[in-house]
């Protein structure tokens, strides 16, 4: 019998019985029955609602992942006891649901209207209270899940089975996303991990940075869009359609407060919502709000509309915009403060944008400006927040004038680099092969005499110039070969058949992965965080041994590939040359392993 967390008398579908919450299930047994009628595993719990405080019946409703309606339970004990019991159930179930949400990131289902119910429990405020068992700091905020992402991920999580806990599910989800976005990695993962060669954790051991990058990318929230809200109707079969989403409605209200006012005035009193929108999009008001002055094509379909025309405003094309910018200018740079001193000689008053060729452009420009101002305010936190007046004394005033751009460039003195023994370095470079002295000493004067003799009689030498045929041919052949081989490499088409090529690729990537695991086990960890990894030296040694075993098979695999190439008519030498680098790497690892084990055991 699993331990019972809490239990209460409750009726379900008007039948009395016992409601119990155990470690893994929520179950309800009818009175007198042995087996529970309703048995809900923890993972299925999705939402919770209860009846209003003060209602005669104390009810609790559990929504499930699969079934929105879920189960309703009415607590049948006397009122105060029932309330206490229900609260207890509610607390536990909230906990469970929050855990589920952390794993599956579900959309919050709309509160059902069956009860005048309180809001469903939101996971975010309760998790700090029930904190300990729950998710890592990497868990993305569940307060504002975006619709589409949640649907796909939830289906993934469900498909993969019951999530164990917050940590593992987050990891799993991140891994899945990384694999989905990187098909080569996915293939490697499929072969090695599904094939059972490497465990899942080992596979991800060197690749945490990928997971971190994915988590960081998910954590970022998209800001407000920079474009003006301009829903363009699509014409479908002659009928003009606009899709109205709640997000669009919200944006329109924010962009054009007039519309919000019109909405609040007219809905639901005079117009229904659907009617409101359809008439709005056909009215002059909407036309005035469009983000392009070229929409004159729509002019002819615009009809007069008694309701919406009331909200029409005059176009914003006066000298000054209708909504002036409110900005408090800093006293130090406020020219207006001393303008009375310069009335005769000072500057003209500034007048903002004047209309150029097209007067109709001006309202549009002003609309863009207002939109941008609004964007910046949301991003930077409002105009008022930027200026904090600190009126305490001289240093602060001076600090306002001290702009960093005006500071002088200070050249840093730098570290003096002084290579030891510089001359020897270049000697080392020049005599790279280490040939040193020829050992043949030539007398300079003799050489001089010979050279002088060479320069005399040059014209007759030139006239008698002959090149030996064989030497010339040999030279020609060698140069031609040089050119030919280089061109051949460039031009040769890749004609290894697809199947063989894929086998070669998989052999190489698998060997690379084994090598990576091997060296990861051998070398000390790269940085501090990795030093805390879980493997003990004995485990590492075991892992290294295992990898060496796999690597030993690589030679045979390459042999098999060469044989296959021969059968398929491809030149086996090419396959050998292609696989040579990986064989070299495998040999190096094997040599190192032999050397290490050849030392007296316990020396390292």
């Amino acid at each position, binding site marked *: 019998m699993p331990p019972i967390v809490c239990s209460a008398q409750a009726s379900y579908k008007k039948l009395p019985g016992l409601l119990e919450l155990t470690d893994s299930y929520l179950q309800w047994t009818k009175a007198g029955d042995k087996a529970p009628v309703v048995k809900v595993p923890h993972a299925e719990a999705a939402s919770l609602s209860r009846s209003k405080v003060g209602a005669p019946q104390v009810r609790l409703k559990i929504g499930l992942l699969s079934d929105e309606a879920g189960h309703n339970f009415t607590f049948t004990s006397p009122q105060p006891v029932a309330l206490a019991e229900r609260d207890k159930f509610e607390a536990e179930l909230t906990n469970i649901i929050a855990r589920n949400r952390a794993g599956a990131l579900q959309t919050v289902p709309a509160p059902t209207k069956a009860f005048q119910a309180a809001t469903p429990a939101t996971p975010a405020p309760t998790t700090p209270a029930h904190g300990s068992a729950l998710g890592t700091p990497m868990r993305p905020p569940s307060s504002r899940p975006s619709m589409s992402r949640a649907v796909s991920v939830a289906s993934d999580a469900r498909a993969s089975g019951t999530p164990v806990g917050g940590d593992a599910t987050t990891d799993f989800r991140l891994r899945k996303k990384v694999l989905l976005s990187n098909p080569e990695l996915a293939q490697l993962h499929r072969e090695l991990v599904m094939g059972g060669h490497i465990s899942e954790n080992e596979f991800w051991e060197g690749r945490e940075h990928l997971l971190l990058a994915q988590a960081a990318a998910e954590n970022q929230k998209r800001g407000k869009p920079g474009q003006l809200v301009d829903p363009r109707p699509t014409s479908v079969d002659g009928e003009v359609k606009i899709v109205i989403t709640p997000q669009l409605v919200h944006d329109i209200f924010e962009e054009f407060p007039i519309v919000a006012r019109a909405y609040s005035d007219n809905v639901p009193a005079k117009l229904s919502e659907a009617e409101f929108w359809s008439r709005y999009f056909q009215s002059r008001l909407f036309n005035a709000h469009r983000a392009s002055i070229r929409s004159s094509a729509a002019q002819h379909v615009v009809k007069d509309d008694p309701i919406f025309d009331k909200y029409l405003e005059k176009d914003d094309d006066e000298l000054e915009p209708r909504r002036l910018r409110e900005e408090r200018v800093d006293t130090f740079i406020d020219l207006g403060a001393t303008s009375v001193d310069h009335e005769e000689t000072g500057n003209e008053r500034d007048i903002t944008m004047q209309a150029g060729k097209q007067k109709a452009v001006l309202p549009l420009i002003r609309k863009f400006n207002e939109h941008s101002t609004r964007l910046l305010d949301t991003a930077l936190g409002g105009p008022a927040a930027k200026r904090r007046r600190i009126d305490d004394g001289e240093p602060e005033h001076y600090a306002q004038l001290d702009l960093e751009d005006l500071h002088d460039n200070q050249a840093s003195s730098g*570290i003096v*680099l*002084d*290579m*030891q*023994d510089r*001359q*020897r*370095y*270049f*000697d*080392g*470079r*020049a*005599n*790279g*092969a280490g*040939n040193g002295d020829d050992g*043949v000493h*030539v007398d*300079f*004067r*003799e*050489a*001089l005499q*010979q*050279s*002088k*003799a*060479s*320069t005399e009689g*040059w*014209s007759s*030498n*030139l006239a008698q*110039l002959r*090149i*030996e045929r064989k*030497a*010339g041919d*040999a*030279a*020609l052949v*060698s*140069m*031609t070969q*040089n*050119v030919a081989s*280089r*061109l051949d490499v460039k031009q040769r088409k890749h004609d290894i058949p697809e199947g063989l090529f894929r086998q070669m690729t998989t052999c190489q990537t698998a060997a690379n992965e084994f*090598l990576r695991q091997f060296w990861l086990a*051998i*070398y*000390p960890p790269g940085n501090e965080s990795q030093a805390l990894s879980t493997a003990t030296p004995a485990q590492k040694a075991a892992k290294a041994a295992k990898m060496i075993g796999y690597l030993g098979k690589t030679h045979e695999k390459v042999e098999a590939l060469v044989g296959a190439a021969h059968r398929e008519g491809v030149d086996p030498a090419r396959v050998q040359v292609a696989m040579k680098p990986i064989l070299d*790497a495998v040999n*190096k690892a094997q040599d*190192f392993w032999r*050397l*290490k084990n050849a030392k007296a055991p316990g*020396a390292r």
Partner: protein
Amino acid sequence: MDKPSHLSVVIDLSLTQWTLCAQSTNPPGITLQDFLSQLLAFLNAHIACKDENTLAVFGAFPGQSVMLYSSTGEVTTTTAESTDANTYRPFRTLDSTIMSSIAERLDSYDGMTEEAPIGLVGCLTKALCYINRTITTALSSSQGGEGAAASVDPRILVLSVSPDQSSTYIPIMNSIFSAQKLKVTIDVGKIFGAENVFLQQAAHLTGGAYVQVERADALLQYMMMSFLPAPAIRQLISVPTQDRVDFRAACFCHKRIVEVGFVCSVCLSIFCQPVPVCSTCRTKFPMKTLQRLRDARPLAAPPGNAPPRPPVQKNGTTTPARPG
């Protein structure tokens, strides 16, 4: 080849090396006489290719670098040239100027006993300056036409028989960078002697051809095939070159060539084993890093018995280059 091309030839005239080359038989060598004849034939061919082609020849003598001939006529010789009815006049001028310049220069060595290192770097820089001047005058004369480099296709050919000189490393690298800026291709013909790493890099970095001449007695064949085509048509006429360039560096502690090493993160100096203090910038590395690196070098001898110093942190770490 619709653009005139300019060729600057730098001839390595290290007399001792030429003597060795003449005596060598295993890679068949070539005497200075034959070399000069074949060189003259090649230069004549370059002039013949196109009327507007220009040529400048520099000689890298022991201890000095001299311009032997230039088609703009800067070099004048004292010996009068004899006219020969059987030879094309421009060829004759070219050949005689070069030979008489060489002879004059050789006279200046009469008293010496030891050979100074050749002035290869001086020749390279003079060639680059000459090319730069040619380009600038071409630019100023063409009234706002195409870009200067488009009107002249410059290249430098270095014919070398001597090994690398270590003291010339920095100047040669500087010349290479200037050549890159000027879009000058540097070709190298290695006639005799060991591989010349600096010139290999010069050819590689400027997109030129490095040719190791195996049959020196057929030198003219090599020159015609590899060095005659102008850079502009090298996409059509592929010239042979040596692809393998030795990029390895030497470690700063022992001056040994290393392939895998440790690099200081502050000044990028290379070491073959982890050191506690960088010798160039004197940055101290944390002890823990050193321990870790020493442990990570599997085949090295176990670390010495020096007790670890208290770690003094400055902004230094080393990053090992991992094998495999």
